[in-house]
């Protein structure tokens, strides 16, 4: 079935507010990978300042509102997101 996947790269410190935002949209699933280096070529892994990758899969219908909110969030706090449409299993 039709689904959308949103991948977000942000600073580790932003994971809690970001997942609170995600939870409000009730996506089918997401996972958080913490402790990474790389974002914006400024990313630095340190006990205090690493980056995170969040992968979200949701119904295409709900992706528009999620992306609007993400846009505001990421422009405010920094970070990058990428969305694609595709085929989902168990995404409803």
């Amino acid at each position: 079935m039709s689904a959308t996947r949103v991948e977000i790269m942000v600073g580790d410190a932003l994971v809690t507010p970001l997942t609170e935002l995600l939870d409000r949209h009730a996506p089918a699933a997401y996972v958080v990978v913490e402790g990474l280096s790389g974002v914006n070529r400024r990313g630095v892994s340190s006990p205090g300042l690493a980056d995170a990758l969040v992968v979200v899969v949701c119904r295409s219908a709900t992706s528009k509102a999620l992306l609007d909110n993400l846009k505001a969030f990421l422009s405010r706090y920094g970070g990058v997101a990428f969305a694609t449409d595709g085929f989902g299993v168990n995404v409803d």
Partner: protein
Amino acid sequence: MDASLLQAIVDPAILFFFFGLFAGFVRSNLSIPEQIAKFLSLYLLMSIGYKGGVSLSQTGLTAQMALALTAAMILAFVIPAYAFMLLRRRLNPFDAAAIAATYGSVSAVTFITAVAFLERQGVSFGGYMAVALVLMESPAIIMAVLLANVVRSRSVVAGGTADGNVSVGKVLHEAFTDGAHLLLLGSLLIGYITGLPGKAALDPFITSIQKGLLLFFLLEMGLLVARRSRDLKLDGPFLAVFAIAVPIANAVFATALAKAFGLGLGDAFLLTVLAASASYIVVPAVVRYAIPEANASLYFGMSLAVTFPFNILLGIPTYFLVLRQLWG
């Protein structure tokens, strides 16, 4: 520099910091796994806090302690304020606030290194200095975020949008509940409650093997500093000078205050090191969220890549030499 100081510099943990610097500069792929590095920092905070709490439970509240903590609080409010005014002349207000918070706060690992140094010199100090560390951590963050908020509201009045404003309550909450900070507080309290019997059971973990774990942490810090200093672009000499001169000024200020308050040599030395140190774990983590407009590579880079190695390699032995002269 006399023999005992030379021997102090050949401490294995400090040499592993040098080695990390070297490995980073020759672009070795040596790295301490991320989660191990994070755990090592939690371990060090826990053991600082816990041991501080235990000493506190032994000495109780003394006049010496009240004086030391008062001096710490004064430093915690004055340093970020003057640093901000200095920085504001050259930088946008967000970067100025973030860097002021970094230098107004303290570095727990610099503190641990200074404690190990004192112990090798056989100079005693009060366990309550861990409380000073805790007290000096937050005020700078809170002041910086308040300043950033003021700047944001002004730009709203001037026609901007208020979107970016972070409520003070939220930031106080962030600063207080930040993991590293809270762990330090919690361990202090638990150390205070459980006292010497608790410490006996924990000693092999928090004392016997501490040096070995610190060694790996400093190795990781050396690697990070090398990597960071390659990327650091300070745009002119102002910030480079700031990252060395302000710690020295803070050290002088703290030493004067310690003398005026009549603190002992050990306490005065640790207060000086705390004032001279800049945060690179707790503050960057909070500020990245609270002042996202600021450039992390500046506040984090200066603190980690310039001030931290300066204090570890030159500052600590120098402050000690000078203070021993003054107190001697």
